[in-house]
């Protein structure tokens, strides 16, 4: 694969074709914040905290670093007034859900985000999808999935699958940037216990 040269924060960076800006930056030791990214998973582009400025057709444009493929001579900035403003607002929106999540608090400090900017929301989940995608892509169990759309979007466990698969796995727990996942899982477990005890386990 041919080497692509691009510029990130004024620094000449080499990358392979097919890499994303995020990967190229990481290789060069430049850090870009992420919330929904995981190296074992397909790029997702949902949290938008990795938003950076890339010069496209000599105009600066905000793009998601975790998705944007490197191009020769691409000029990227990972901090600017606009980027910081965007990240700050994204954090404030997320802090309405998970005000106590350490991952968010650290970033909030960095970008001056106010955790009380918006009224608190009922759900902790910030919909990074790490649990859903990890379960599907890495574990191939599909025990947890998304439900509904828009502002009603949630994550949900499939009781029949979770009751068999989850106890011995729980690998998604530490991935969760908030503590929402455990709560949801425990809740589903609790709700499902009576039903499960009547259901004979299938032999596979």
């Amino acid at each position: 694969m041919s080497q692509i040269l691009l510029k990130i924060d004024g620094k000449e960076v080499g990358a392979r074709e097919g890499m994303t800006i995020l990967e190229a930056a990481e290789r060069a030791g430049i850090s870009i914040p992420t919330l929904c990214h995981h190296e074992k998973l397909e790029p997702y582009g949902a949290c938008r905290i990795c938003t950076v400025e890339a010069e496209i057709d000599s105009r600066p444009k905000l793009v998601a670093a975790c998705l944007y493929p490197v191009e020769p001579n691409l000029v990227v900035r990972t901090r600017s007034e606009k980027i910081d403003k965007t990240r700050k607002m994204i954090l404030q929106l997320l802090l309405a859900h998970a005000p106590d999540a350490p991952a968010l608090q650290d970033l909030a400090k960095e970008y001056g985000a106010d955790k009380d900017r918006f009224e608190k929301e009922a759900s902790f989940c910030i919909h990074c999808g790490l649990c859903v995608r990890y379960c599907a892509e890495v574990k191939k169990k599909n025990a947890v999935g998304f439900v509904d759309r828009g502002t009603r979007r949630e994550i949900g466990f499939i009781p029949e699958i979770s009751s068999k698969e989850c106890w011995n796995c729980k690998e998604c727990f530490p991935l969760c940037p908030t503590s929402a996942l455990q709560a949801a899982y425990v809740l589903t477990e609790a709700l499902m216990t009576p039903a499960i005890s009547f259901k004979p386990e299938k032999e596979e």
Partner: protein
Amino acid sequence: MPRINSPAELEELRKGILSKRDPNKSCITLCSGSACHASGSADVALRIEEEIKKQGLSAEVDLRRTGCHGFCERGPIIVIHPEEICYFQIEPKDVPEIFSQTIKEKKVLERLLYTDPITHNKIIHESEIPFYKNQERLVFGSNGNIDPKSIDDYLAIGGYSALAKALSRMTSEQVLKEVKKSNLRGRGGGGFPTGRKWEESRHAPGEIKYVIVNADEGDPGAYMDRSLLEGNPHSILEGLTIGAFAVGSHEGYIYVRQEYPLAVENVTIAIKMAEEVGLLGKNILGSGFDFNVKVHQGAGAFVCGESSALMTALEGRAGEPRPKYIHTAVKGLWDRPSVLNNVETWANVPLIINKGADWFARCGTERSKGTKIFSLVGKITNTGLVEVPMGMTLRDIIYKIGGGIPGGKRFKAVQTGGPSGGCIPEDLLDLEVGFDELTQAGSMMGSGGMIIMDEDTCMVDVARYFLDFLTDESCGKCVPCREGMRQMLKILTNITKGKGREGDLVLLEELSGVAGDASLCALGRSAPNPFLSTLRYFRDEYEAHIQEKRCPALSCKELIAYHIDPDKCQACMICLRKCPSEAISGGKNRIHIIEQEKCTKCGTCFELCPPRFGAVKKISGEPVPFPIPEGERILIRKSKEK
């Protein structure tokens, strides 16, 4: 029908069809589009058939159920050929008279004609009615003349001749070149140049490529694609096949909303018929070009109108958009090059091939060529579908074609571009419609919804309405859209409820900026437009809501009160009897009073108070006047006094 294997055979077939048709035979075309269907055209059709049978006229009179004629306000519509007598708002009971008078005696029934609202003249022919006269119906015009379920009808008006020309007399490069030269831009939203999209796909690596019709028309208040697909499905198939030839694709999809059952039905029939005669399938017209089309029904998600989300849905998944840093023209459906164009765009293609790019580009503005179909709806006299040359002013569309605002009300704004668009105020009515012109005004062309709003429409509520729509229709994947819209909707809802606070507008603008810059797809990036455009042109309305807790349009329920003017109330008991919450007190000869604590503000009293009394008032931003004392409530009728 036998399979046709060459352009010559197609012409033979066409001649055969035409030779069997007697141009002097009476033919009643009846609009059977969804809107006329809802107004009862199916019953009219049955009645006509009955009459033909009863009178033994099947040799003399044909009935043709056609697609939408466009003038939905006046449906059901019939046109009697060859005289082209046009009757509106037909009911089954009118049918016998139409037969005895117009069909047999060739007499025109005055009462069913269109009456010009200004001159009060009766108008016989469609082409003389102002609604039609000022249009240029190149794409939409055939709708009223053909039965969409009959390929013969389409062939009779010259259908598939563009395909024959493309396949036999042009190379695929020439087809592409012609479309590029025409400057046709996508009629579905962004106005991306169609030819460039095709070119990108054509040159993209890969053996398998797709062409797709986007018929997931989700803009509330827009139904031109539906009417085209329902009324002239072959024109879209023809355009799609030509596009496939230019791009080098052999598989096409029509993604159509399941909410449009008639469109699904008609396009499915059209595909089957085209396959039977060999206009789809293997070796089309002997050219060696193979092309097949499948219909895929959308299950109800506005976001699927976005190209990458539509392709995700075609793959059988939840319609979440994908980042388009690599265009779908290169990496689309199943990661293969895919050309997606909207219904109207495809329907323009046969015209361009038949008549040439120069002919097509002769009308329009500098950067927007051809015509555009709009659905002219809302507070407008002539609701319907109108096709106009690009560059016509909003004023001409609204007043010359649309007949202005009904009920003596004052025009306030025209909303274009659906939930991604914006509201354009009165002082910009001379704006010429075109992609860039509308974008510059803070709105956009979108798919062609044009919703007229009058003085009774609250612009803050309009912004809230669209945000409400979008929070429901967003896929919910990315934060700026899902969470940003959630907060914007909350703030706007509060403002319409009188709970707006200082600083709300700044926060809304900030949220708009982030959603506009950082959202994953076009839905999120354009979602702030309804708010931003209303703020730009109607800031005073926002301020009245926030600072004075007043809704200037008297529309926001929480900010208005209903009040009966004691000087005007005639104690007629109508509102009192009909009030669902029994909030009106009074009686015969006793002036009616609304008990504010009981009032749910349903507006029934306002609606039912006879206009000659006009006693029920809406008030906002001021206290409700105290009810007059019990003793003064006896009504003294002025007429009796005299």
